[in-house]
């Protein structure tokens, strides 16, 4: 009944390479998080630019975004299940919602903090309106956008696991199935996979990109 290390590793091996239930579940979860995360970054990035650039949008939508951000996105699942009739759409909805607001707020901040002198300089070189957004504001806010993306991934991943526990398919559902069969070794095996994915992406992928960006933008303390 109680999980053992050797049993968990064995389940991990069987699930990934023999029966393939873990491999299938992992692939499904990864597909969901990648699509959900990408959409969260795109939507959040767009909203962030909008709030950063337009005062009217910021005054009307800004506090709404802050309010939404404080709601854990999994709370939306019941409504989403009704709206999407229990389909996979509900899970995507929750994952996207989980990441969007963090992205929005960080991009907004990045845009607002662009040094005015850079915009003035660009204006003297004939840049106007949307060109200023594309050529100055967006590149200048990449470091904060990256922080936003990192958070969006973290929130999105957590939201996905929670949603899958209740919903259908993926690692979360398999975790619940394993519990229903009292297969605690499998439960632990799945938990290992979940934490490994989180670790690899958050600490290897993002921190590598972050390091590169920060040094190129001249924002690191070392070396300058």
């Amino acid at each position: 009944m109680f999980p053992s290390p050797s049993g968990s590793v064995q389940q991990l091996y069987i699930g990934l390479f023999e029966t393939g239930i873990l491999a299938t579940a992992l692939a499904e979860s990864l597909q969901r998080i990648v699509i959900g995360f990408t959409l969260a970054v795109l939507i959040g990035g767009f909203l962030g630019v909008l709030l950063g650039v337009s005062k009217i949008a910021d005054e009307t939508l800004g506090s709404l975004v802050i309010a939404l951000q404080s709601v854990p996105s999994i709370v939306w699942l019941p409504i989403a299940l009704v709206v999407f009739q229990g389909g996979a759409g509900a899970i995507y909805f929750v994952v996207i919602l989980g990441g969007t607001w963090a992205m929005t707020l960080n991009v907004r901040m990045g845009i607002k903090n662009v040094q005015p002198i850079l915009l003035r300089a660009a204006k003297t070189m004939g840049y106007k309106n949307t060109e200023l957004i594309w050529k100055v504001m967006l590149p200048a806010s990449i470091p904060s956008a990256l922080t936003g993306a990192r958070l969006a991934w973290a929130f999105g991943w957590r939201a996905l696991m929670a949603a899958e526990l209740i919903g259908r398919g993926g690692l979360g559902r398999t975790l619940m199935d394993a519990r229903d069969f009292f297969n605690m070794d499998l439960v632990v095996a799945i938990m290992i996979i979940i934490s490994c994915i989180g670790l690899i992406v958050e600490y290897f992928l993002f921190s590598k990109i972050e390091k590169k960006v920060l040094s190129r933008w001249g924002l690191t303390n070392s070396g300058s």
Partner: protein
Amino acid sequence: MERVMITEVEKTFPNKEKNQSFTVFKDLSLTVEPGEFVSLLGPSGCGKSTLLNIVAGLDQSTSGKVKVGDTTIKEPGSDRGVVFQEAALMPWLTVLENVMFAINKKMKKEEAKEHATKYLKLVHLSKFLHSYPHELSGGMKQRVAIARALSMDPKVLLMDEPFGALDEQTRMMLHKEVQYIWEETKKTILFVTHNIRESILLSDRIVLMGTRPGGIRKIYTVDLPRPRVPASPEFIQLEQDIMAILGGEIEKVMKEEMGDDFNSQKASLLYGTDRNMGNHI
């Protein structure tokens, strides 16, 4: 090379809170001849930057007009290159890309690259084409900013205390470089400075501005042969003439800012002719 004509320009900042507005200057007229090097000199807050920004199109005048050649200025444009006190380089672009940024809209990539390289060579930065701004010293950054402004081949070059934040040695070197560039390119240059010596060293004419009421106090024509020698008697004479009037203006500003605590004898010790004056000493 183009004439800059400033005609009866007024700048008033509205103050929303107290319902009272502040007029920096009004009825200010000045003509900078094609190829001329003119300095704007004056105490802090007299409106040097404001005037330069109006010419740049970054600020709108309340009334009056500014013409560069035959066109009336309404907005910023690449016919006027601007160099600020801070280099204002895009931190995510290399030195070369920063200069190309100014001309990318006008020419193809290869051409822009060639062009940018040429101007970076002019300011002696060929070795640093692929460095990022944070890897450069303050003086080098400022040279990139100058190359960037020049690469657009503007009719007029506007410089707002471009060397204000640099140390004395770097500044002296850049004075030489600016003189060389001016002689090479024959640009019309409008140059803001606090520094009397700098203005005498570089300019054909020095426009001395004052406050309350703001505006032009006096215009000096510098008739000394180039390169100018700060130790020559004529140089020193002019320096002292300007100092006499500028000192009075600075005193006015300080009295305004400090109220009755101000002691002009003590204060006069605080500034010498070669210092950056009025910088809220």
